[in-house]
């Protein structure tokens, strides 16, 4: 009399879950997949647009007078427009003024800061062979101390016309860009540090020097490629 009841209970305990578990998990997983793909599809164009606006806003800030831009790729074979390039290379952005003349080239540089890697966008002006502006793209420096690199007006003045002339043979910079203690800047290729934020200031100087030593000779050598803005994007 007791037997069938016990068997039934046991059957209930073991039989229900595996089917129910499969059914529920696949239902939930399917629903979840559908919702995620839907959200991705809807937001993708907006996210891309936001990223483009963010780059452009930074770009037109670092290149004085620029109103349009074209993307190029610096490869081992020289500079090619980014659309035509297939190989590996570094992306650079050329900015043009209203007459379509080249007003500067913007490049990305990065180095380890106090907390995390600092990424900046800076512009090189071939006319004066100098660095004309920097814009911090991403950093995690201490608020109120290291993050002054993005807004301190005195520090920003370093990059109004930071000397980046090439050496006689055109393979490197004539003078290393380096940081000096606050208030002791004497040469146009020196960066006056922010007092109290030496590590962040040095990181900016180091990334500018590393990037400029490498990229400026290539840009100057292939400047003709960058000159015309006819195919420029608005």
């Amino acid at each position, binding site marked *: 009399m007791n037997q069938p009841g016990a068997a039934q209970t046991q059957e209930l305990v073991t039989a229900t879950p595996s089917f129910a578990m499969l059914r*529920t998990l696949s*239902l939930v997983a399917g629903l979840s997949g559908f919702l995620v793909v839907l*959200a991705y599809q809807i937001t993708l164009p907006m996210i891309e647009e936001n990223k483009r606006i963010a780059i452009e806003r930074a770009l037109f800030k670092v290149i004085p007078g620029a109103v349009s831009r074209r993307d190029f790729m610096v490869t081992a074979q020289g500079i090619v427009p980014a659309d035509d390039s297939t190989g590996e290379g570094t992306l650079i952005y050329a900015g043009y003024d209203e007459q379509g003349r080249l007003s500067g080239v913007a490049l990305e540089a990065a180095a380890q800061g106090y907390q995390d890697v600092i990424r900046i966008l800076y512009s090189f002006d071939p006319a004066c062979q100098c660095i004309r502006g920097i814009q911090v793209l991403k950093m995690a420096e201490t*608020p109120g101390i290291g993050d002054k690199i993005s807004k301190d007006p005195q520090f920003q003045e370093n990059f109004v016309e930071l000397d980046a002339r090439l050496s006689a043979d055109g393979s490197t910079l004539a003078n290393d860009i380096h940081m000096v203690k606050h208030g002791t800047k004497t040469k146009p290729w020196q960066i006056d540090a922010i007092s109290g934020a030496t590590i962040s200031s040095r990181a900016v100087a180091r990334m500018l020097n590393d990037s400029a030593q490498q990229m400026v000779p290539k840009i100057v050598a292939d400047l003709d490629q960058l000159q015309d803005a006819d195919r420029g994007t608005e």
Partner: protein
Amino acid sequence: MKRPDQEEKVTADTFLRGLWEENPVFVMLLGMCPVLAVTNSAINALAMGLATTFVLLFSSSLVSLLRKLIPKQVRIATYIVIIATFVTIVDYSIQAISLDLYNALGAFIQLIVVNCIILGRAEAYASKQRLGATVVNSLGMGVGFTIALLCLGSVREILGAGSLFGFPLFAENFQPWVVMILPPGGFFVLGGWLLLFNGYRQYRERKLMEQQGATASGS
């Protein structure tokens, strides 16, 4: 604190419990990680609160709808999948709304997945209650969480940056307490609010006891 095991009727208390009696931050002390990390400005706190509320509301509703279908053995896995889905949607939406905001909130948007407030609501409430009660209750919890984050965020921004929602409040010569927007400031301000909250709670309880004592001796 009530822990309803039976389906309960929707009352004002269903909503208000999350704001005061069971406030997730000031009473239950849940979700401390985003509470301390992203409240360095009022706008970050508001965005984090709203994002959490959205995830809380939708994941609890779905859990409540599916509560009869979810076997006990896989309930946690199911909850996590549901929560992760809505977190991903919020993640994409915030990127679409503002990249600056997305960068300011950092990894904490993705980390809503493991926010114990949401999992706690799913386990302790949504899995046992009807949809209506769940929506009202989790909305209350979300609003309570958002208010708590705003309490911290605005105090930290006012003291640490001299502004509120980015608008400067003081004259030029105000020297901000930078420490308040740094991690230690989060602990200071949270401690301050907890002191205030619990002090008031004890004061009210004492008042109530005295009243009862008065009526007892009077009779």
